[in-house]
């Protein structure tokens, strides 16, 4: 795999991109275009036929380019005397146009599958995409063209693979990953080694049998083939496992294995490739191989970690240029991948390390919007890449050339299955002796059955040099068959099998604050118990690492005060913010009353003696939750009006954390005005004492200008300014934070806001007991599944959601 650079050093990336010259459809379109354009340009018809001729006659793109270009040129100069008002130069835009066309095809296919409701329930998307690839390849062949070598190794390893791996690494569920790292490493290293040697060795033995016509196959190429075919493929695993919603443990076991076996595959591949010419392998080479493995894996992780820390450090200073923030995440990660590939280290491990290292710090530094951008870009890129990979796999199958050998292919498929099962069962037997949560037989079955092979194997096979490996074509055919077998047979049956075996599924529930409290609680509790038991266990070291991280690393890598924030508080703030957004979004709609199915407010849990609760109950017909909601709607309405007055600036985003959900504001505006009228009626009807907090809020809500009064009346009461629309202030982008900290009003940031307060940019509100009630009804909102669904941006906090498949 790492030969990519050396083998294709003379090609640039763009020149190896898939040429889709004569994809039939395109030709039609092009012809039509030609027709129209030329008619418009009052040109003669021979041009069209000329184009068709060139189109039919040349298959190599480079030839075609030159000749077609000259054709056109002669044609144009020959037929046209007048100045060409409109001319057509397809070759000028050919490469990017075709890339876009492929991407468009991929995206449309993906879109199409989800429009057919029952299909995606039965057949995994990856299978459908391969079928589409086969069809496209077939069409190209039918059109009489040479199928382009789309799944070029260079393109695959440098363009298509990194987004998928980065997505996986950035959103890697660290906790379960680290808790099971021993098992994962065991499967990834020992398991892959076992598979490679078992498959390779037995294949060689089979090849020696008379009558198979395979006696010319030597041992080393067999082992090389074994090492290519034995590695579980992350792309295929992701594609299938995301759809079956398996429980977290099994998912991380199979997926983690597929990520970490990269180093083993790289080393084995190089080792066997190197020695397949030389012949003999000495014990010295084995030792060197082991050292090489350590360097490749640890070096990859080190490179990734360095870039990850650099990215985190850079993001510390981006508070003034928020727009380019997401870029750093992508660029540093890609650099990590390329740097690792440069030294033939494991690029996949570098990417994983980079993403996992940078994430906590970057997330604390960048704005909420940037985080959303990062998230969506990663998901978008990885899903497009994945789609393209599967389509290309199909096209490459049609492209051939194939050398079908029944014995070789069937033995490969059988051996892969057998070795996987033996490997998993054998390794689990050893691992279970050390594991506390043992792997059951069902788990073992899923781990073994989920070992899908994919495009990495194909690309590695594609890289083999034909001169050194005369069996390359046969290898490729066998690899493709194995991929198809695993993706189609195993991928399609794994879902029913999971249901049949009643394997524990993933918990779909949302992470609650109580669970978060108890996660933290348990961590400290177990650390304490370990300390009392008097031995350094996992929890002890984890605690040490956490404290080191908090004390030194976070301080360096996270800007401002946020590094002090414990995880629980960060979680709480994110949750609060998310619920606020949810509330505003749902409240902005028409069905305001139904948005709050259950209303448990602070007064329900507060001991009755508290005066604010009594005061609030003066308005019995109007529950706290609803009032708070109305207030919020009106407040955001107000801000939005202000915000629209701001001029557009290319370099700064308008700093309104609520903007995300407000794109359709103008449409809603009319509704809002009506709502406002209705609600201010509600609020002012009960004759509460003029100075009660309720009244103040009501007035504040119904009349934006009234906040001067409130300011006067709230003298001596701690206040906080909600400054939601001031792009000038660098802090304002962190407003999500400030906003959610209303309860903790004495925060340094809050004070600073008050100090630098500009009356045009914010409004004052009395914190009083409002914050609590709000929470109350937010909890209520939390319960409504419909409400959850209408949340367009799930926010950065929800680990579970991020682990969930992005594609439904």
């Amino acid at each position, binding site marked *: 795999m790492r030969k990519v650079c050396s083998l294709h050093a003379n090609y640039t990336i763009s020149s190896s991109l898939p040429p889709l010259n004569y994809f039939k459809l395109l030709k039609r379109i092009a012809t039509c275009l030609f027709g129209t354009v030329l008619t418009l340009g009052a040109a003669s018809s021979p041009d069209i036929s000329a184009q068709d001729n060139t189109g039919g006659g040349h298959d190599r793109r480079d030839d075609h380019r030159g000749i077609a270009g000259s054709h056109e040129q002669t044609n144009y100069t020959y037929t046209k005397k007048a100045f060409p008002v409109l001319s057509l130069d397809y070759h000028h835009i050919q490469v990017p146009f075709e890339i876009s066309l492929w991407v468009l095809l991929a995206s449309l296919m993906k879109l199409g599958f989800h429009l057919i409701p029952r299909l995606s329930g039965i057949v995994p998307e990856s299978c459908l995409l391969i079928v589409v690839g086969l069809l496209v390849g077939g069409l190209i062949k039918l059109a009489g063209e040479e199928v382009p070598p789309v799944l070029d190794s260079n393109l695959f390893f440098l363009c298509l693979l990194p987004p998928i791996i980065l997505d996986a690494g950035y959103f890697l569920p660290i906790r379960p990953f680290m808790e099971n790292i021993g098992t994962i490493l065991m499967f990834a290293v020992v398991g892959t080694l076992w598979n490679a040697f078992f498959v390779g060795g037995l294949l060689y033995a089979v090849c020696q049998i008379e009558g198979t016509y395979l006696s010319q196959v030597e041992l080393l190429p067999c082992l090389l083939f074994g090492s290519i075919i034995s590695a579980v493929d992350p792309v295929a695993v992701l594609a299938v496992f995301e759809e079956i919603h398996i429980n977290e443990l099994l998912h991380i076991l199979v997926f983690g294995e597929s990520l970490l076996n990269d180093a083993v595959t790289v080393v084995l591949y190089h080792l066997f490739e190197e020695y397949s010419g030389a012949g003999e392998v000495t014990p010295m080479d084995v030792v060197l191989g082991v050292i090489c493995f350590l360097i490749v894996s640890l070096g990859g992780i080190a490179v990734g970690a360095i870039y990850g820390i650099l990215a985190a450090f850079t993001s510390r200073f981006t508070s003034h240029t928020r727009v380019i923030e997401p870029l750093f995440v992508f660029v540093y990660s890609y650099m990590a991948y390329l740097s690792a590939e440069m030294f033939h280290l494991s690029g996949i491990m570098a990417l994983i390390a980079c993403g996992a290292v940078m994430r906590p710090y970057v997330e604390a530094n960048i704005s909420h919007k940037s985080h959303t951008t990062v998230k969506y870009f990663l998901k978008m890129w990885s899903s497009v890449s994945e789609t393209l990979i599967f389509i290309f796999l199909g096209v490459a199958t049609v492209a051939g050339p194939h050398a079908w050998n029944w014995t070789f292919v069937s033995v490969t498929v059988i051996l892969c299955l057998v070795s996987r099962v033996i490997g998993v069962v054998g390794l689990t037997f050893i691992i*279970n002796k050390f594991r506390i*949560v043992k792997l059951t037989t069902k788990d073992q079955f899923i781990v073994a059955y989920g070992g899908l092979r994919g495009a990495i194997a194909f690309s590695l096979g594609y890289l083999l040099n034909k001169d050194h490996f005369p069996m390359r074509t046969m290898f490729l055919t066998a690899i493709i068959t194995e991929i198809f077998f695993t993706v189609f047979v195993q991928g399609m049956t794994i879902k029913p099998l999971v249901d049949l075996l009643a394997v524990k599924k993933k*918990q779909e*529930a949302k992470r*609650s*604050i*109580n*669970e978060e*409290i*108890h*996660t933290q*609680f*348990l961590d*400290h*509790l*177990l*650390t*304490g*118990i*370990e*300390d*009392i*038991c*008097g*031995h*350094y*266990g*996992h929890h*002890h070291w984890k*605690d040490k690492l956490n404290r080191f991280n908090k004390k030194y690393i976070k301080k360096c890598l996270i800007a401002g*005060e946020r590094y*002090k*924030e*414990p995880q*629980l*508080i960060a979680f*709480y703030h994110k*949750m*609060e913010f998310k619920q606020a957004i949810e509330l505003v979004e749902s409240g902005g709609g028409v069905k305001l009353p139904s948005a709050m199915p*259950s*209303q*448990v*407010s*602070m*007064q*329900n*849990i*507060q*001991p*009755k003696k508290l005066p604010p609760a009594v005061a609030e*109950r003066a308005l019995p017909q109007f529950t706290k939750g609803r009032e708070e909601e109305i207030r919020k709607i009106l407040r955001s309405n107000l801000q939005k009006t202000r915000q629209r007055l701001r001029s557009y600036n290319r370099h700064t985003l308008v700093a309104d954390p609520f903007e995300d959900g407000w794109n359709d504001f103008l449409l809603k505006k009319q509704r809002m005005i009506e709502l406002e009228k209705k609600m201010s009626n509600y609020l002012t009807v009960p004759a509460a004492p003029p100075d009660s907090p309720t009244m103040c809020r009501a007035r504040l809500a119904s009349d934006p200008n009234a906040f001067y009064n409130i300011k006067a009346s709230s003298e001596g009461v701690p206040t906080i300014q909600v400054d939601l629309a001031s792009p000038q202030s660098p802090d304002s982008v962190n407003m999500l934070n400030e906003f959610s*900290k209303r*309860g*903790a009003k004495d*925060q340094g940031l809050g004070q600073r806001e008050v100090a630098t307060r500009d009356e045009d940019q914010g409004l004052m509100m009395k914190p009083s007991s409002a914050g*609590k009630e709000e*929470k109350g009804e937010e*909890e*209520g909102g939390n*319960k409504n599944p419909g409400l959850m669904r209408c949340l367009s941006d799930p926010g950065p906090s929800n680990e579970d959601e991020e682990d969930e498949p992005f594609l439904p």
Partner: protein
Amino acid sequence: MGASQSARTEHEFQDLADRTGFSLEQIGNLNKRFRQLSKNEETLSRQDLASISALDNNPLRAQIINAFFDKRNLRQNEAGTVQVIGFEEFLMVMSHFRPAAMHITEEEREKLRREKLRFVFNMHDTDSDGTITLEEYRRAVEELLSKAGTIGQETAKAIADAAMLEVASTTRGKMEPDEFYEGITFENFLQILKTFDIETRMHVRFLNMDTATMRCGK
């Protein structure tokens, strides 16, 4: 005499192993640790546990120590605290942190789950009245965040309130403004942590071999 004493100890250990589920090696190790902590006394006091320096950084230090002297955790169904505990009690508390066995039935799993959650619940329910009141929950969260400085103390209350509201809205559904949610009962506690796999998470690796060299001492 030495032989008879060791025979007696072995017999005792076997008895303890049957009751707590620990292996004999584990009990041996824990006994060594117990002796080390209690300075070779028969009983262990709060001071002995408080003197473990590794606990100093633990925000839950006081709660953990209290849990060892809480009668409810000693598998006797009575409330209150004791001043000193013997080795048997020490083992009883520790046995809450044993990992689940490999093949257990659903009922056993549920039982284990309840036991472990009960332990946590008891840690929160400081006055042993069977409910975690808002006050108690607030204190628990404050303890949890006690190492986080002032930010922690201010937010702790809000977090506990939010958590309490979550419990109330999950377990009660809609509540009238004048209704009062008095506190989290154990049933509510089970319900709210339904998806929290405590049976696979709340465990410590008890060593089977003697690792005197790895001891972190006091």
